[in-house]
């Protein structure tokens, strides 16, 4: 029963829904993630060079 439900869930997954659900929250989170990564990466690279 659980497997059947899971199969239906997978079949029912829509990429559009996954993207549009909480779209702005996802976009802001992505922006912050990219900024954080570049900032930390920059700091680490600078540290290694010194």
């Amino acid at each position, binding site marked *: 029963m659980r497997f059947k439900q899971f199969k239906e869930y997978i079949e029912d997954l829509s990429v559009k829904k996954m993207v549009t659900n909480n779209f702005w*929250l996802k976009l802001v989170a*992505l922006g912050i993630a990219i900024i954080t990564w*570049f900032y930390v990466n920059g700091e680490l690279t600078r540290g290694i060079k010194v």
Partner: protein
Amino acid sequence: MVGILKAIEWKAIIEIVILWFVIYRIFLFLKGTKAVYLLRGIVILVIAFFFFQKMNFYVLSWFLTKFFAFFLILIVIIFQPELREGLIRLGKRHIFYIEPKQEEIEKVIREIVSATSIMSKKRIGALIAIKREIGLKNYIESGVILNADISSELLQNIFSPPAPLHDGGVIIDGVKIISAGCLFPLTDNPNLERALGMRHRAAVGLSEASDAVVIVVSEERGTISLAINGQLTRNLSPSDLQTILKGQLGRKE
């Protein structure tokens, strides 16, 4: 530009995706809670910090650096309940949560509207919270766990006095009544009408503390109200309630 493209290799993409997921989950967790206002303040300070650094405003940067060091301790103290709940949830979350199907959601809405309509006519007080993304574990545990399929009759039975659970709230998750007789937090919103009773205050309180949709049936007047994100909509007809619930709970395709 070439440097940026060079920096983006597969490991970087994995790191960014993990960072994005963690930040997104934190946002979802804080959405609809009071902590979000504090988060806005922190974001403004962080932006100011980067700006001061870029513009070489050394004194202001120094102040903010010192402030952040102190602020980290402050955050742990302020967010202590949220941090504790978040860490507990991290270990318990179902990765493959099976979302109910549209027809199941419609059945749940039908049963809730039917029960609410009958209780409104009979002037039976009711408090029904429908869980969405934010967990309600603390409130679920304050009541009696039922884990029962939703039916209009069961909801009426729970709220009809002198049933032992009629005074608390019911929490619905998906197609199940998870718990009954639950205690919800009371709002301290001063703008709420003084004539409103504890049920309405509890409904608004829970909708402020989470993203749950909370339905209230007044015992005195038999009116149906709905609390979402701290906002109370009063004097709803059963058809209004059905329309709003469909909009709030229906699957977004």
